[in-house]
């Protein structure tokens, strides 16, 4: 076995199992070096199938490399490293183990050359992420984690059903030869089942509620990991499997506006950021739907930059939660005074998510709108422009404003411990670095047929006008955005309330039926016991003690009867 046959994800998965047995500097070294070794391995895998095997007559390709695999593998490993640094001394070991396992599985998906391998790592990701949620060890997290794993197991079932149809139609599980809708044709149920399985993980409608329901219940460090892998592996498989599939444009646009509207209504800072994950993944899904080389490169680049700035935003929010124990905007405010570094890093993440010029979001997201303009998709382009302004509104200003400014909450917590600060500084530097110098990222993008220049007068003026006037709208309309102690109903109402009520209703009826049956059974049993008691009880006819005379008489009678029967 050569080095390019090792799935880089396995290094992280093995590290995850070794971690609980290590202490002190060995533990820290494993958390930080594991992802770096995996990153090195990512770049040892050349193009093509590196490892093949047979399973039930199907050709499996557990390790297959190309530009897209290496791009996603790279960012997953960088994320695992920075997340590990952020969580190094604060997270429980079980959380760190689960997070490494989860990251390793995501890398596994990125290098999977067939659908069975995708499926296996897909399910491992669901397991790892659920344990990350449960690690926060609160009652709310236990319940949310259970709801989360149910939805993801459903996604896995849909995916497996789709794969079965794929095998039935084509007798192969090869993944990434061409878009699935072209290989299978849109008429096959398999196409739609696989798409549904992928979209559930992307946070697409109708089941997007799992994301803002579960992620914010994780620990301050846990959500940093959660934000990166599940939705972005979904983007990865959609990119490979469904590029140019028109319906994705509209699904993506729905996600974009769903994220904005729900985040505007939200009071919990981490739930605001959770909705904005759906919003950002919407841009990528839309780009994959447009399907031109420019759009696809834009979607891939946006996934890369998004992982960094979203993790940075969640590190900033996580630091606030870790230091204050508070999540609600109504309880926060004025923290810029005592947490300057957390505030500045949060603002850098907020500017990057808003695609401000000189930040990483600017050099990636504008490619997707450019692709819409190039294809003359007027409605899509206008909606994407409105959405860009909306991102600044719901995340770019709302998050830093309500957490670090607005009113003075009176709290004066200091910045978090050194490792958390260092992780934030690293990702803030990457947000700005990629924005100022995008070439290294452009060079590793999957499609080299397109070139894109982000810094033209047009792009810069377009973005600055959109964003700054969006900012003006925010401050002018601030009285209409007063935070309230509320949540907003979402599709999860159906399984948290409607389902529960339905179950309770059935429980009442079935309880009554059970009660009636039990009563009837008891009556019968009592009657049977009475009969037995009547004959065999202390005064029962069969339990009496007879005197010798009576006994003799009965025996004489029996013998007489016997004689009569014998002679007849």
């Amino acid at each position, binding site marked *: 076995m050569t080095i390019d046959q090792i799935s880089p994800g396995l290094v992280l998965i093995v590290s995850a199992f070794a971690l609980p047995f290590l202490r002190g500097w060995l533990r820290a070294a494993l958390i930080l070096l594991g992802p770096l070794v995996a990153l090195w391995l990512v770049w040892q895998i050349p193009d093509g199938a590196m490892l093949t095997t047979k399973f039930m007559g199907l050709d499996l390709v557990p390790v297959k490399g190309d530009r897209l695999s290496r791009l996603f593998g790279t960012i997953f490993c960088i994320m695992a490293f920075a997340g590990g640094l952020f969580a190094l001394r604060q997270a429980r070991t079980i959380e760190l183990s689960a997070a490494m396992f989860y990251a390793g599985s995501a890398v596994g998906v990125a290098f999977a050359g067939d659908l069975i391998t995708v499926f296996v790592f897909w399910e491992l990701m669901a397991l790892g992420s659920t344990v990350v949620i449960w690690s926060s060890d609160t009652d709310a997290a236990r319940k949310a984690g259970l709801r989360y794993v149910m939805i993801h197991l459903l996604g896995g079932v849909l995916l497996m059903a789709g794969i079965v149809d794929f095998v039935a139609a084509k007798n192969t599980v090869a993944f990434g030869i061409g878009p699935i809708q072209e290989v299978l044709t849109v008429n096959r149920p398999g196409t739609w089942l696989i798409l549904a399985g992928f979209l559930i993980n992307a946070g697409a409608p109708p089941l997007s509620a799992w994301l803002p329901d579960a992620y914010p219940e994780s620990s301050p460090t846990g959500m940093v990991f959660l934000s990166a892998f599940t939705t972005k592996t979904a983007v990865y498989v959609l990119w490979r499997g469904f590029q140019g599939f028109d319906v994705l444009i509209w699904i993506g646009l729905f996600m974009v506006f769903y994220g904005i509207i729900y985040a505007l209504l939200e009071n919990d800072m981490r739930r605001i950021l959770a909705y904005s994950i759906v919003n950002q993944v919407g841009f990528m899904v839309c780009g994959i739907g447009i399907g031109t080389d420019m759009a696809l490169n834009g979607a891939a680049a946006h996934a890369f930059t998004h992982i960094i700035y979203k993790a940075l935003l969640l590190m900033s929010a996580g630091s606030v939660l870790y230091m204050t124990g508070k999540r609600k905007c109504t309880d926060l405010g004025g923290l810029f*005074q005592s947490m300057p570094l957390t505030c500045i890093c949060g603002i850098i993440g907020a500017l990057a998510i808003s695609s401000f010029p000189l930040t990483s979001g600017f050099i990636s997201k504008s490619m997707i709108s450019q692709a819409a303009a190039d294809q003359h998709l007027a409605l899509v382009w206008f909606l994407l422009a409105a959405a860009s*302004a909306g991102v600044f509104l719901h995340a770019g200003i709302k998050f830093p404003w309500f957490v670090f400014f607005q009113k003075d909450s009176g709290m004066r917590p200091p910045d978090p411990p050194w490792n958390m600060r260092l992780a934030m500084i690293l990702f803030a530097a990457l947000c700005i670095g990629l924005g100022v110098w995008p070439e290294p990222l452009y060079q590793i993008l999957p499609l080299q047929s397109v070139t894109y220049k982000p810094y033209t007068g047009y792009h810069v003026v377009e973005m600055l*006008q959109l964003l700054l006037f969006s900012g003006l709208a925010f401050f002018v309309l601030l009285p*209409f955005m007063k935070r309230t102690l509320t949540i907003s109903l979402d599709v999860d109402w159906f399984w948290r309330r409607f389902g529960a009520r339905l179950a309770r209703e059935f429980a009442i009826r079935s309880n009554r039926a059970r009660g009636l049956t039990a009563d009837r059974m008891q009556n019968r049993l009592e009657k049977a016991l009475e009969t037995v008691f009547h004959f065999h009880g202390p005064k029962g006819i069969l339990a009496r003690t007879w005197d010798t005379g009576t006994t003799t008489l009965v025996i004489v009678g029996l013998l007489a009867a016997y004689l009569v029967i014998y002679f007849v």
Partner: protein
Amino acid sequence: MADKHDKPGDLHWLVRPQTIRRLWVVFAVVLALTVVAGLFVDLPGHFVWDGEFWFFAAYGFATCAAMVFGAKALGIFLKRPDNYYDD
């Protein structure tokens, strides 16, 4: 720096009313500059209006206002107390 605003009633310089007034002035100037900049760059204009120098400013403000009020209208139906699922 930190000890200067620890006394009660003594606001951090960034949140003093005069600083906020100054920030608004700076913000207004920057807003005006971005619109003026629209006159000097070549806006390709793929569709209607998007080649006008003021377009993105007006569009950004208008769509954000629409989203805020749209969200507020939806909120009437969707908002619940945040302990809604707790029982």
